């Protein structure tokens, strides 16, 4: 009930959790369901998610631009899907903030800029948050579902809008910004003691690229700061909801529980916790009961039957230990803990997504 309500009320749904728990699939199932409820949804995935694109019928794969999913078209509802293209998104943000095309060109052609747009830690999260902001302002959509990058620290996403500005505030880079203030040339700046030392480590070409980047960037940082502020506010808006996606392994659960605490501490509300691939329960009998039947069958010499009962015992044990391991998440979940069972088959078509939807929105 509660997750259904979230899909109805939210403008933005952020799916967070460690890598390998099925965030992308969960985001797609939510998108499909929301479209069927009449919403115009765009799902943004971080990974190429080839198989998911196939399941959605996007034969040429996901691209950096939203594509409409025919299978998601129902009544007024629409489903769109796209993949985050980090460098392309970064370039869009630069162009949107540059005073003219010449400044934008100078920046995107700079080697140091290219390093930042692909290698600076947190850039992917940063661009995911930018994409979220851009799509939120796009009239074609009334719900954005975003799958967050599999970072070691899920909180990176919340801090992402400030990544570049915090980087620009670093004292070493402040030093590189000096030329615009004092009229010094790139080369004379590069001879300052600290920078010279950095140059000796990384090479002077690299350093000169960096200084040239900061010169080109001058004046744009205000725009970037304003934009970061707007994205932060969107993340904090009431209509933005956070879902934690987990899997039934102890280390995943510990990480998710820690993340739930961090979110709460920072004033965010977790709308629901989804536990994917939970081992199904087979009846309400006990492990011992099934084991006893297995032993009895074995004693009669019926080894096939014994194997069947013994398997029931094993499957039940796994279902039990996994549910017991969920305790830290149950304790932190005020609203909905949604259990999605491990299916007999891998998820590779839209029918399987439908099966997941019946569990997610049971």
């Amino acid at each position: 009930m509660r997750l259904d309500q979230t899909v109805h009320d939210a403008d933005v749904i952020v799916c967070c959790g460690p890598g390998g728990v099925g965030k992308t699939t969960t985001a797609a199932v939510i998108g499909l369901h929301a479209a069927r409820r009449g919403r115009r949804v765009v799902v943004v995935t971080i990974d190429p998610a080839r198989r998911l694109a196939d399941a959605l019928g996007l034969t040429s794969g996901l691209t950096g631009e939203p594509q409409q999913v025919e299978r998601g078209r129902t009544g007024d509802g629409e489903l769109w899907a796209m993949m985050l293209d980090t460098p392309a998104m970064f370039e869009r943000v630069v162009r949107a903030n540059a005073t003219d095309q010449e400044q934008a060109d100078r920046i995107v052609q700079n080697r140091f800029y290219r390093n930042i747009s692909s290698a600076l830690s947190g850039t992917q999260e940063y661009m995911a948050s930018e994409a979220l902001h851009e799509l939120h302002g796009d009239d074609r959509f009334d719900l954005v579902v975003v799958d967050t990058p599999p970072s070691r620290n899920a909180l990176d996403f919340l801090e992402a809008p400030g990544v570049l500005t915090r980087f620009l505030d670093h004292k070493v880079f402040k030093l590189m910004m000096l030329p615009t203030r004092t009229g010094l040339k790139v080369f004379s700046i590069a001879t300052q003691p600290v920078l010279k030392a950095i140059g000796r480590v990384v090479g002077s070409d690299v350093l000169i690229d960096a200084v040239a980047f900061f010169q080109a960037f001058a004046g744009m940082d205000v725009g970037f700061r304003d934009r970061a502020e707007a994205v932060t506010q969107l993340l904090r808006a009431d209509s933005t909801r956070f879902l934690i996606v987990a899997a039934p392994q102890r280390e995943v659960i510990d990480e998710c529980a820690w993340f739930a605490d961090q979110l709460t501490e920072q004033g965010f509300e977790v709308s629901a916790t989804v536990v994917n691939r939970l081992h199904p329960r087979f009846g309400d009998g006990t492990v011992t009961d099934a084991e006893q039947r297995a032993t009895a069958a074995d004693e009669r010499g019926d080894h096939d039957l014994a194997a069947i009962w013994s398997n029931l015992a094993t499957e039940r044990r796994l279902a039990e230990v996994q549910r017991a391991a969920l305790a830290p998440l149950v304790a932190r979940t005020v609203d909905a803990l949604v259990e999605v069972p491990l299916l007999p088959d891998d998820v590779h078509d839209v029918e399987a997504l439908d099966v997941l939807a019946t569990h997610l929105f049971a």
Partner: protein
Amino acid sequence: MPPENQSSNQSPLTELAASHLVIVAGKGGVGKTTVTAVLARAAADAGRRVLVIELDGKHALVELLPGLDVRHISAASSLEEYLLEHGFKRIAKRLASTGVIDVVGTAAPGIDDLVVLGKIKQLERSGEWDLIVVDGPAAGHAITFLTSAAGLLDAVGGGPVHDQARDVVAMLSDPRRCRVVLVTLPETTPVNELIETADTIVDRVGVELGPVVVDLVYTSAPLPDPAGVSFGRAKMQVDDARAAAEFRRARRAVQDQELARLAGALPLRQVHVRALPTAGLTADDIALLAAELAGSRDA
């Protein structure tokens, strides 16, 4: 089930631990840490001097490997150490605050990974250990991590970074010194990702791949079809038992199909780590799986 093209006279443990340094790699959630722990435990129990290395942000192995030497290496501490050792005392001090890695790492991408590999190389050269097992970086980071040295070798003309990159490339490309062990699960997406990663590592890194380790494999005898089994007079829970058997048979079919597909796509030996009915492994579980690895002739 040893696929024919992957037979070997060596035991799986011998082949997994055939180089001084083993970097365990794979996508998030496939069991890199489990495989690192099982391999380290098995080698240590076989009398080898083993060092285990965890990279940034992980601290799970100390608990799983009581009595073993487990070290934590971060890019920040490696860079600082590197600068101090190479006569950059002033800059090391100056940069020894938050953001040091961002600053230098962004100016020269890969330098943060290179200093970590450089530190690992130093440990490998020290001769103190017979085997060093690295619980590799998560997700797609493994490729950038491993290509950092070759990339910097091209980008930086000379100086300390160039020397370091050259030494690291020499280590990575020598199969007696270093191999990468890829980990996956017997499921569609992890197998697809592993095949892609393997191709990229061979093409772009030039490092030798060791056996592929498949984690969470169900190894018990295949179940009979419950439709052909008589439950006698039993009524209670018969449906549950049938449903559980059908579920396991279906998962098993996926597993067999994916293992066969993996064998067909990659000419590498497969080593299987058994799925235990637990939600999280303990040090005892690791010891059990390590004993199984040491005792097995083949996967």
